[in-house]
């Protein structure tokens, strides 16, 4: 199961027809201490680039957009009590939501781990 990234620093992994989505290690470093995450509603239907979640750091709120279209089938309820999971394990237990993918073709537009690494390095 490979990981893919967007230019907006979301990541996605796919298991069957379910995508797990979060923000990258680079993104959490930029945000700083995460104090609250607003996850989407269950069963919500989201189009590509719709707002999936809001991440609040001490200083500011940032929108997170879904890289793929689909229906929300699970949200990470752990984040409610422990939003710092995003800082500690952004690309693991700090995931936000799982979506049942409606258009698998959208995944092809995302960057591979190597491509993303190069992209982030280019950001300076």
């Amino acid at each position: 199961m490979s990981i893919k990234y967007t230019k907006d620093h979301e990541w996605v992994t796919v298991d069957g027809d379910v995508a797990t989505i979060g923000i990258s290690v680079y993104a959490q470093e930029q945000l700083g201490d995460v104090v609250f995450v607003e996850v989407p509603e269950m069963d919500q239907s989201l189009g590509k680039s719709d707002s999936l979640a809001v991440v609040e750091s001490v200083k500011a709120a940032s929108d997170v957009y879904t890289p793929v279209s689909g229906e929300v089938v699970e949200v990470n309820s752990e984040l409610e009590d422990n939003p710092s999971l995003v800082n500690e394990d952004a690309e693991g237990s700090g995931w936000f939501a799982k979506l049942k993918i409606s258009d698998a073709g959208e995944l092809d537009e995302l960057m591979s781990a190597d491509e993303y690494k190069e992209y982030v390095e280019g950001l300076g």
Partner: protein
Amino acid sequence: MGDISEIKQTILHDLHLELGAKMVPFAGYDMPVQYSDGIMKEHLQTRESAGLFDVSHMGQVVIRGDDPAAAIEKLVPGDIQSLKDGEMRYSFLTNEAGGILDDLIITRRSARELFVVVNAACKDQDIAHFKSALSGEVTVEVLEDRALVALQGPKAAEVLARYNPDVATMPFMTYQEMEIGGFPCFVTRSGYTGEDGYEISIPNAAADVLCRKLLSETEVAPIGLGARDSLRLEAGLCLYGHDLTTETTPVSAGLLWAIGKRRREEGGFPGADIILAEIANKPKMKRVGILPEGRAPAREHTEIADLDGNVIGEVTSGGFAPSLQAPIAMGYVPLELSSVGTEIQLIVRGKPRAAKVVKMPFVEQRYYRG
């Protein structure tokens, strides 16, 4: 977008970069928002030990004349004439409508000299205001050759006393000129974090050396603007341009304590008619502390609603309080909904969230009263 080449730097700019600061534009200056520890740790460091802040972007002004205290009272409602040498007072410049042009700290150095610290964003406008309104009575000198740093926290006194033992016994809101580490400094026991601490005005040429010395003390860490903001919010202190504007009056802002008894009786400051009438008849709106339920922070401009969903006001400062591990906010609500315990709602991203009016400060202030 503003011209990037116009952005100013403080004398400590290189030190900030060396310390790994993340720099942001703030009030025309390139300032550190946080260092490598991050806002949360920097905030707690200041509450538990000591933090060093660069506040050199603020304006340091000396006003001289035959009776500068009497002169400046034409512009501020504070009782400045009763100050003794070395005493200081928080006050604000008002306009004819009773609105607030800036908040500032006025120190009496002597009968003929006041030392005034004003906000960075209002600096030029304040200085022009002093010069035009008090022309012929006073001279206004801007101290461009001095840095200003704040050393704040429960360990601040212990640390600074290593450089000059005289600082230990200074009471809150007093001023002394003294040598710190061999450099001629203006030291005040004041700050804007709710903690005991000092603001130290240092000759530019000595600022880097002295700051490095203070930072080499095990109790001290550098703190950026991010934590400065969360610290002052926890302390229930107003931020100009947010909690205080030309649209807010000192009465609605809950700053009546800064208007002396004599000034209330005599008036004689801009907007006195309006402000004194508000004191007598109560203001329509009042600044309150707000504790949201749950963990979602309510930021500035979040709408405040009553329990029926009617919008009644707006958050003017809001965020996450690291000391409380909870969101906090302040904002303006109608007087009848301003008492402690009143249940309200905050409309965060379109969704109403429960909150209530609470007493401020959110975190107990720990000033040294001697």
